[in-house]
C-alpha cells in the first residue's frame, strides 16, 4: 500500500508562511509522499520559492512538484527550480522520478502542461505564427509528458500536471476559458502509459473527479477545490481503511 498526499495552487508568499505547517507536520503519519500540482508561488520569484521551500520542505517525506503558470510569471522558472531543488524538493518537467515506498516503486512523471482545449472545442496548429506557437507548445509539452510516463518502471504510476488533462474536472469553470485551463493532449499522454492516477490543479472553480478517455482516474487537487491542506490517495491497496486519523 502507498499513500500519497496531494495539493495544488498553494500560491505561497510571506503572508502564507505557517498556514499549512500544522497540517504538514501531521503528514508523515498520513502519507508516504507529498505531490504538489503547480502554482507553488504567486509571481514565480526566487524569494517566493524560498517561502514555499520553508513551508513545504523538511517534512520527513519526499516532496515532488511541477511548476504552474504563476511560477513562470517572472520568467525565473529555472532559478525557482534551482531554489526548490537545493531545498531537497524534486521538480519535474517532462521528467520522472521513482520513490521506494513500503517495498513498492512509486513512479511519478510530471509536467506543467499547457492549454489548448478539449475534443470538439480545441485550438489547431494552423494559421498565424502565434497560434502555431501556442498549439505547438501544447503538443511538445504533452509529448514529453507521455515519454516520461512510458519511461518509468514501477509498481504504481502517477501523472502530475498543473493544467487539466480532461474537461470533467473543469466543471464549475466558465466554459469559455476551458482552452486556457487544459488540453486533451495531456489526457492522451496519460493514456499512453499504465497510469494509475492523474493529479492536476489550476482550475480553482473546477470539480474534483474525472476520468481520461482511457479510464485513468483524474483528481483536481487545486487548494480551493479540495478545501483542506492536502488530500490523501491510497494506491496498491491490500485492505481499505478510509479513516485517516493519526495513530
Amino acid at each position, binding site marked *: 500500500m502507498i499513500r500519497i498526499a496531494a495539493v495544488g495552487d498553494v500560491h505561497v508568499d510571506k503572508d502564507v508562511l505557517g498556514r499549512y505547517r500544522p*497540517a504538514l507536520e501531521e503528514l508523515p503519519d498520513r502519507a508516504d509522499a507529498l505531490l504538489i500540482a503547480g502554482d507553488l508561488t504567486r509571481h514565480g520569484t526566487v524569494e517566493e520559492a524560498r517561502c514555499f521551500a520553508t513551508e513545504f520542505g523538511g517534512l520527513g517525506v519526499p516532496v515532488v512538484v511541477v511548476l504552474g503558470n504563476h511560477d513562470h510569471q517572472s520568467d525565473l522558472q529555472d532559478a525557482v527550480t534551482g531554489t526548490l531543488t537545493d531545498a531537497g524538493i524534486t521538480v519535474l518537467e517532462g521528467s520522472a522520478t521513482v520513490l521506494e515506498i513500503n517495498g513498492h516503486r512509486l513512479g511519478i512523471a510530471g509536467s506543467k502542461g499547457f492549454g489548448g482545449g478539449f475534443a470538439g472545442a480545441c485550438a489547431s496548429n494552423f494559421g498565424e505564427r502565434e497560434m502555431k506557437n501556442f498549439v505547438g507548445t501544447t503538443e511538445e509539452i504533452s509529448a514529453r509528458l507521455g515519454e516520461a510516463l512510458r519511461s518509468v518502471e514501477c509498481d504504481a504510476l502517477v501523472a502530475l500536471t498543473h493544467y487539466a488533462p480532461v474537461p470533467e474536472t473543469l466543471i464549475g469553470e466558465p466554459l469559455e476559458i476551458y482552452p486556457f485551463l487544459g488540453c486533451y493532449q495531456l489526457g492522451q499522454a496519460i493514456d499512453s502509459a499504465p497510469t494509475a492516477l492523474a493529479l492536476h490543479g489550476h482550475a480553482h472553480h473546477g470539480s474534483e473527479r474525472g476520468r481520461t478517455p482511457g479510464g485513468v482516474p483524474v483528481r483536481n487537487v487545486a487548494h*480551493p477545490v479540495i478545501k*483542506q491542506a492536502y488530500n490523501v490517495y491510497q494506491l496498491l*491497496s491490500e485492505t481499505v481503511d478510509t*479513516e485517516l486519523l493519526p495513530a
Partner: protein
Amino acid sequence: MTNQIDLEAEIQRLLTEHDRIAEQGITIQRREHAIVLGGEVESAQRRDEICRQITGHFPEIEITCDIGITRAQAPIEVEEIS
C-alpha cells in the same frame, strides 16, 4: 468612467495583472447596485488588497466582498484509487 460592458473584464485583468494581487480565481457578479466578488484566496491580506485595489481604481463602483480564505486543516479521510 469605465464602460459598464467592459467593467468585469477590467476588474478581472486588474486582479490578475496587478503585481500585488495576481489572482485569477475571483468571480465578479453584478447586482442592482453593487458588484459581488467571490472565490477564495490564501490569506486575509490578499482579500483586503483585492477590495482596496478595486475601490481605488473604480471609486464609483460599490463592491460587496464574499471572498473566503481557503481552509488549510489536515484531512481525516483517504480515497482509495482503483
